[in-house]
């Protein structure tokens, strides 16, 4: 059955949260009036027309109690109508004849209205209180479930250190049923907490009424806990988070960092040691070079000079063979000296610190040709196809390269032949190719593979030389990040090609 709209609105006016359906409340009011009417009719032989409202007061009271203001009003109106019709003179009419009757009706109406209003306000107070209680309850449940669901331990202790709240995690830590632990003194549940840092810190929080935070290590379980204590009125909230994992990682990290630092410092030490060793080696090499140049060459100078003095001073007393022997001594000494010199140059070429810068190859080559006595003396025809392209290199090394290649080129010719050498450059990509071509004796195929090795001499005994010149050339070119190669055929001369970067 559909409830009339105005009743709904009237009801909404009175109650915020109606628990009973509106229609039910109206029907209950009507039914109660009907019951009261029936009982009153049954009492008619006993009472007559006296006490007409007798049963309708409780009816309104009960209706208002059950259905609040609306039901009270409906019961009141129905009661007045029925009483007027059945028990107030004239019977079977709604007319009111006397002032006494008016007083009677209005008194009932006023009392009933009062009852209904009181019922309504009482109901509202109860409803509001209930709502508030429900809200509080919901809130409590929410926080409790929130605290219960987090994985950290939460406890609240009162001023006597008695436990008034603990969440599941805290209960698990206590290892007893929660109900048993609630209300117990904290130190009875966790005796070990009393002995150390924990007690001091939490006491400080309580005494100074400040939040504290500390990390707590419990040796028996090998666990680390980050504890926070907050003053909460007379009580204290204690919050514990298991940070063992984090601590373990931190410790591991520290160990790793320490290992790394140790490793780094040992590496540094090693590098320093090696550097020192290397410096020592270099210094030793320096001393070695000095010894070679100074000490080993002194006897050679003596050999060369004194054999010469003998030849000069005792010229007449020696026969041709004597002079030949002396000449051989001098030749051997000179050769030994040249060897020592070339070995020194080779070692200097290998280890001296070099800087690469643009070099005017054209000027350098001309200088070398005009300055080197062995080139001048050979009366060679040296053709330089100027301008030679500049290269990125080192002047000392380039001087070694060019002078060695040139002296080879003018040296290895058939006896009686005038040496002819041609020098030119070409560019290829970002490199410069320097060519030195001679028309000398060339190199036979079987010697070509060893040409750049130390002490390799393709023409042993025929031509003077130490066999180090091309090794110096190769090393010098390599030090400047270049390459050297050659083409040759026996009897047809050789062409050396040095490839170096452009500046």
């Amino acid at each position, binding site marked *: 059955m559909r409830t009339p709209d105005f009743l709904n609105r009237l009801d909404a006016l009175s109650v915020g949260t109606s628990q009973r359906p509106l229609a039910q409340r109206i029907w209950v009011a009507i039914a109660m009036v009907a019951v009261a009417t029936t009982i009153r009719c049954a009492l008619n032989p006993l009472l007559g027309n006296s006490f007409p409202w007798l049963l309708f007061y409780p009816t309104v009271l009960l209706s208002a109690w059950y259905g609040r203001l609306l039901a009270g009003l409906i019961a009141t109106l129905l009661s007045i109508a029925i009483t007027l019709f059945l028990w107030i003179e004239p019977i079977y009419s709604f007319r009111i004849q006397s002032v006494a009757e008016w007083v009677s009706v209005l008194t009932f109406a006023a009392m009933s209205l009062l009852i209904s209003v009181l019922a309504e306000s009482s109901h509202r107070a109860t409803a509001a209180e209930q709502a508030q209680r429900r809200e509080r309850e919901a809130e409590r449940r929410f926080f409790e479930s929130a605290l219960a669901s987090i994985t950290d331990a939460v406890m609240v202790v009162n001023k006597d250190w008695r436990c008034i709240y603990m969440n599941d995690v805290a209960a698990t830590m206590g290892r007893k049923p929660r109900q048993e632990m609630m209300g117990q003194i904290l130190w009875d549940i966790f005796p070990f907490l009393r002995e150390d840092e924990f007690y001091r810190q939490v006491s400080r929080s309580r005494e100074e009424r400040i939040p504290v935070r500390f990390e707590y290590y419990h040796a028996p379980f090998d666990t680390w806990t980050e504890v926070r204590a907050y003053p909460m009125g007379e009580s204290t909230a204690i919050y514990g988070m298991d940070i063992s994992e984090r601590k373990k990682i931190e410790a591991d990290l520290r160990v790793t960092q320490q290992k790394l630092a140790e490793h780094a410092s040992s590496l540094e030490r090693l590098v320093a040691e090696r550097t020192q060793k290397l410096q020592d080696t270099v210094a030793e090499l320096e001393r070695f070079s*000095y010894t070679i*140049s100074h000490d080993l*060459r*002194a006897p050679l100078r*003596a050999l060369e*000079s004194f054999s010469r003095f003998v030849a000069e001073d005792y010229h007449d007393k020696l026969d041709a063979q004597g002079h030949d022997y002396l000449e051989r001594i001098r030749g051997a*000494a000179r050769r030994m*000296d040249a060897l020592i010199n070339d070995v020194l140059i080779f070692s200097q070429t290998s280890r001296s610190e070099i800087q690469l810068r643009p070099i005017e190859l054209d000027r350098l080559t001309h200088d070398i040709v005009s300055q080197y006595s062995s080139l001048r003396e050979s009366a060679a025809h040296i053709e330089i196809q100027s301008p030679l392209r500049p290269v990125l290199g080192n002047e000392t090394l380039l001087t070694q390269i060019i002078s060695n290649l040139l002296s080879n080129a003018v040296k290895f010719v058939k006896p009686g032949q005038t040496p002819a050498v041609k020098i030119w450059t070409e560019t290829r990509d970002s490199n410069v190719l320097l060519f030195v071509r001679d028309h000398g004796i060339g190199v036979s195929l079987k010697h070509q593979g060893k040409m750049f090795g130390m002490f390799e001499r393709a023409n042993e005994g025929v031509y003077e030389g130490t066999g180090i010149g091309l090794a110096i050339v190769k090393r010098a070119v390599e030090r400047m990040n270049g390459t050297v190669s050659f083409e040759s055929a026996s009897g047809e001369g050789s062409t050396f090609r040095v490839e170096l970067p452009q500046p």
Partner: protein
Amino acid sequence: MNEELPILIAEDDENDALILQRALRKVGFNNPFHISPTGTDAIRYLQGEGPYADRERYRFPRILFTDLKMPEMDGFELLHWLRSNPQCSIIPTLVLSASQLDSDITRAYKLGANSYLVKPSDFDQLVSILRLVFDYWQMCQKPKVPSKC
């Protein structure tokens, strides 16, 4: 050229000393020679000490040739000593060494050497170098030397 004044040669290698003397004679130095086998001996000679007290016999030298590597006191120490004894440093000093190390050359000049010559292994080369020295020395004005310092 003051032919009277000797040339002091600080050289521990007897052979090198003999070769040097012969080369010097060959290019025209007619001075007497004194060979000091150590730097210490050269200093004593310059100061006219001990056996060199007789300044008539051991006259203050006109020029000094010194090797670098010598026992007791080497060429560098001799140069250093000369430098810290200005009255002696009047003597022109030529280093004649087998070393071609840049460090040696630089150090010798820094210590006040007037020339640095590398001992060639070939006698002819030595002669041609010394000939240049002789010609140059001929042209130079010579300082007055003390009898000792």
